[in-house]
């Protein structure tokens, strides 16, 4: 038996990969299948799942409603479609802002003297590994009416003798956007840095020899070669932003409801797992579609592991 295993390379490989494959199958793939089954079910009056096959949860998500004002049998209720749209546009905006902020910093680090690069990278990792919840809390303290930002603006205004009433910043869509940008910025910096650092410096010399100025070199050499990093970073930012509910919960209060909040409430407060499951599958399909078209256009960055 052992002798046979020693000679059979394929069996060895299967055995080595087996624990991981089984673990991932049981805890990632079976749960997805269960979610799909539950999403076709119905909620019983005491909050249990009745297994049937109905598309009610999906039609409700897409706006079909039987709870109409003037005696109509059915009508369009945009509540959930709006939530999906809001999550999607927030994820796009966050990604755009994050690229704008991350690119110059990644470029700065990649062009730093090799001896100092590790220090600069280290300075990006510290905020990244400070706990996610703690980082949201930090912004809650900065943004509130009595918080640090209003205090500092107040000082400046006072010195200039301009009357000033503190801004209401917490519990607004802007607060959620800032929180998301802050949370996911490092996930963009690291992959962009990795692809910038790989660029062969002789390419710059070649561009200069051929008469390109620094702007042209950047646009024609640096930017295209750093695209794999931008693609990997976008995947690492866009997908989690779509599903996160803590940032909107803490910085948006009850004002900004995203699809993550919707799902969380179905499982905890409203107790309708069937509707929550349908919403989470729609979320998954949305992120997969965006990722598919995005990576088909730009390729799947191998930088993804580095982040």
């Amino acid at each position, binding site marked *: 038996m052992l002798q046979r295993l020693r000679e059979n390379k394929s069996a060895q490989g299967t055995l080595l990969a087996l624990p*991981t494959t089984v673990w991932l199958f049981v*805890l*990632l793939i079976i749960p997805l299948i269960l979610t799909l089954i539950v999403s076709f079910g119905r909620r019983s009056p005491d909050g249990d799942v009745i297994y049937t096959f109905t598309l009610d949860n999906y039609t409700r998500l897409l706006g079909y409603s039987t709870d109409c004002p003037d005696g109509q049998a059915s009508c369009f209720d945009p509540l959930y479609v709006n939530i999906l749209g809001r999550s999607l546009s927030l994820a796009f905006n966050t990604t755009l802002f994050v690229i704008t902020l991350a690119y110059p910093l990644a470029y700065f680090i990649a062009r730093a003297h090799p001896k100092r690069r590790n220090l600069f990278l280290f300075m990006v990792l510290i905020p990244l590994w*400070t706990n996610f919840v703690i980082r949201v*809390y930090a912004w809650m303290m900065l943004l509130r009416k009595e918080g640090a930002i209003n205090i500092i603006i107040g000082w400046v205004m006072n010195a200039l003798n301009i009357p000033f009433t503190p801004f209401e910043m917490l519990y607004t869509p802007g607060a959620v956007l800032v929180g998301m940008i802050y949370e996911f910025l490092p996930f963009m910096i690291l992959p962009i840095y990795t692809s910038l650092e790989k660029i062969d410096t002789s390419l710059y010399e070649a561009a200069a020899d051929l008469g390109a100025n620094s702007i042209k070199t950047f646009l024609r050499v640096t930017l295209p070669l750093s695209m794999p990093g931008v693609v990997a970073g976008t995947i690492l930012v866009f*997908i989690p932003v779509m599903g996160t509910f803590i940032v909107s919960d803490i910085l948006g209060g009850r004002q900004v409801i995203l699809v993550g909040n919707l799902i969380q409430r179905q499982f905890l407060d409203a107790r309708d797992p069937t509707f929550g499951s349908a919403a989470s599958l729609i979320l998954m399909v949305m992120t997969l579609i965006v990722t598919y078209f995005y990576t088909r256009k730009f390729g799947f960055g191998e930088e993804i592991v580095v982040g």
Partner: protein
Amino acid sequence: MNPFRRSPFVIIAAIIVYFFLYAPIVGLILYSFNASRTNVTFEGFIPSFSERVVMDGSLVKSSPCGPFHWYCDLAKNDDVAEAAGNTLTIAFISTIVSTIIGTMAALALQRYNFKMKPFSQLSLYIPIVIPEIVMGIGILTLFSQFFGWANNAFNLVGDSRLSLGIATVTISHIAFMVPFVTLVVQARLQGFDKSYEEAAMDLGANEWTTFRRVTLPMILPGIMSGALLAFTLSLDDFVITFFTNGPGSTTLPIYVYGLLRRIITPQVNALSTVWILVVFLAVLLLQILQNREQKQHS
């Protein structure tokens, strides 16, 4: 042309982004010395040491620990101690398991050909391309279905009933940590020079000895950085833990989240500051390990 030349625009932008990254953290640390109990606005540092805590309304006037009043308060908090214990237990166990099985999978995927290889490789990307909340509620559904069935089938009652707890959190953490370990170790194996192993075999070492004495020491730094990445992922995780924890298995992120929805005293800031210090030391350790590895390679 100097390859290290950067325009002033890039330098200014970098300074602004670093400021954006650090200002909230500095604010957080500053507020951990706040004299105000309500912690809404900064009322100055706690001025003096005394035998016992002296309060003036919601302001702390003096304390046995002086400015570090909230840190002493934190040390006396049993809930925090329990949550910290849970967090570390979960992180240690899940790191050990995911490092071992993740490394095995990396070796299999890099060195062997077998039938389910494409499936194994593809399943590693699930945690990257699917939002965490989708996995969280899926795993919650799996556990509640399984526990419902098992409790019924084996007539489990009272304390022996299966329910969510440290075990379910640990099992779920391993599921999303393994792919990261495997992908990191796989990346290291790609640049591996096979001639060392061939030399060992030529000198009469069998496969196991070659692995233990040659392969393992050479990929160990890669395994270590995979393990450290897994460890920090587990410490940082909120969403998966949120859906898989039960009574008595609260972790620090869950505990902090619970506080944020109620009354917040500067104790939360003290906790955050301690956390930031611990993370700082962990990242420093990782950097030192990676530097040593780079020196070995060059």
